[in-house]
């Protein structure tokens, strides 16, 4: 190779170098996540479900079947049972009172996703705030907040959720409040633990010596280091909240009819399982696909953020199966593993 060629190559390397250095943890995570086919597929499924939920009125315009309108003539058999999928323009058949099941599942998705996202957001914000304050200040503040967190975790939460729904009257805000009330405590505990270890680091000491106040340290210096575990917890909490809402509605104490909700549809479907399989199968599948997609995505994000599990897995993979990584990489890992 000629000298100029080498120089050019060196120049290229030099030009590349800052780009390589500039990768933040988030960029690395995103790169790893993008290679995770299952996680990306889940992301696509989630986006599709959100699009379907938002676009529900569009499907009403196409099918001319509003969610709460019953069609006793076309939508029910002579015996008054639901009609099967594909009959008389009902794509997924009808429910027990002759309403369009497909449209009702779409509107149920709106409730489920809305409850899932809103409660997770509220619970995460509250949990992070409580955990940060308890962990940072310690002492009496920690003791009081800690006992309060314990009390919430010790509540038999389904009983309490049901009781609250009865006392306050089941409605969407009440259900969101109840689910959010039980979602912050677990997050607060983990954030507190992380805060305890981070606040002892030297750079926090440095910030303090520069005159930073407690809230600046908590929210500017500590919080960014907690975002990764909190993001994973939040992603994994969404399906929990979705199931929570479905369970409340299934027990009759969630979203009240005629508003469509997956739990409520499934509770009604019990009476028809012998004559209308679709009435049970489709809403159950919608619920399962949604929660599964969020769980898979949360898992993917966690794996992508934690290089340690990846290293162990890659090392193990190297033993049994053909590996796809570049040789230098595997050699290094081999050396580390064996």
């Amino acid at each position: 190779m000629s000298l100029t060629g080498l120089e050019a190559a060196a120049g290229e390397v030099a030009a590349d170098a800052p780009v390589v250095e500039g990768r933040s943890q988030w960029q690395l995570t995103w790169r790893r996540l993008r290679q995770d086919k299952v996680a990306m597929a889940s992301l696509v499924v989630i986006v599709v479900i959100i699009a379907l939920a938002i676009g529900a009125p569009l499907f009403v315009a196409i099918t001319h079947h509003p969610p709460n309108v019953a069609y006793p003539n076309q939508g029910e058999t002579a015996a008054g049972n639901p009609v099967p999928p594909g009959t008389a323009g009902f794509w997924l058949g009808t429910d027990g009172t002759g309403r369009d099941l497909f449209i009702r599942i779409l509107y149920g998705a709106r409730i489920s996703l809305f409850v899932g996202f809103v409660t997770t957001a509220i619970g995460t914000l509250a949990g992070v705030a409580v955990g940060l304050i308890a962990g940072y200040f310690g002492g009496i503040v920690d003791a009081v907040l800690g006992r309060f967190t314990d009390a919430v975790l010790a509540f038999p939460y389904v009983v309490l959720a049901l009781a609250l729904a009865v006392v306050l009257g089941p409605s969407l805000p009440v259900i969101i409040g109840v689910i959010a009330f039980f979602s912050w405590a677990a997050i607060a505990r983990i954030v507190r633990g992380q805060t305890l270890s981070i606040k002892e680091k030297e750079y926090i000491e440095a910030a303090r010596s520069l005159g930073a106040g407690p809230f600046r340290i908590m929210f500017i210096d500590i919080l960014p280091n907690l975002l990764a575990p909190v993001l994973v917890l939040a992603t994994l909490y969404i399906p929990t909240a979705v199931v929570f809402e479905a369970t409340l509605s299934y027990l009759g104490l969630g979203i009240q009819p005629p508003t469509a909700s997956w739990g409520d549809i499934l509770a009604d479907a019990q009476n028809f399982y012998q004559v209308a399989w679709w009435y049970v199968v489709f809403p159950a599948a919608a619920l399962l696909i949604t929660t599964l997609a969020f769980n898979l995505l949360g898992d993917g994000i966690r794996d992508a953020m934690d290089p340690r599990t990846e290293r162990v897995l890659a090392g193990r993979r190297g033993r049994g199966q053909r590996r796809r990584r570049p040789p230098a990489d595997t050699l290094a890992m081999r050396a580390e593993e064996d």
Partner: protein
Amino acid sequence: MALIGFLIRRILSGIVVVWLVSTGAFFLFFARPVDTVARQLAGRAATPQVISEVIRNLGLNEPIMVQYWHFLEHLVQGNLGFSYFTGESVDTMLKQDLPPTLSLVAGGVILWLVAGLTVGIISATKARSLFDRFSNVAVLIGLSMPVFVIGELLILVVFVPLNQHGVHWIQTGYSGPSQGLSTWAGHMILPWLTLAAVQAAVYTRLSRGQLLDTLGEDYIRTARAKGLSERRVIFRHAVRAALTPVVSQLGVDVGQLLGGVIVVESVFGLGGIGEVSVQAIDTDNLPVIIGFVIIAAVFVVVANIIVDLVYALLDPRVRIA
């Protein structure tokens, strides 16, 4: 000595937690109009005089703080109050409703621990194998399935067809072990499977994750370098360390579940603490709701204390101080 001090401190803070929970429950339920309860008790055609009589008899006309004081007095004496409707003491009701819940949790724990730990350990030692991939999918489905869907599915695909074909061993409802062990198991098998299906998923994931983390530790490499057999490395060195978080999860879960497994109990009509609580909620039977909430909180608190103790025994790095 450190142990006794630790126990005393944990028990004191446990009492604070139970007090917080009971106070929360009391004000939540009592600080609301009392007419509804009285009207239900007095019957539909009751005159206003009868209703106010009922309210007086229940002591609901007193100021809320006085009621709260009475409530605390009774609580300290171990008296959880009396059902509004049957006059039965809540303590007695508790003794009646505990066996189904206890049966459910006891059988469920064995099933889910055996299934969860076996699959979790095999998956971790054969990570990314076909078995691991399948078990991961099964775990995620288990985690994503609402309990009531699993219960309903079991009823549809197991209970109904079997009974239609003349096999009547599997039943719904509850029958105590004193009625015959086989009958008891026949009534409990579907609830056990439902509970275990959900929990086994949690435990598989937890034990797999913990074991994978542990297998990445330096001391495991050291153990392998010493030439120990893989079997010995995994069972003597890795599994023991990996199991401590599983133990703590188990304590918390058992504590929570003993407070009532509402959905499973309701789907299979077992009775039990959960189902009775829901009935009490439906009928505004305040003393029963509060009593059951307090008992459930006690279970959780006690379970947490036991977990901390076991933790210290299992993991020498945890010091009780």
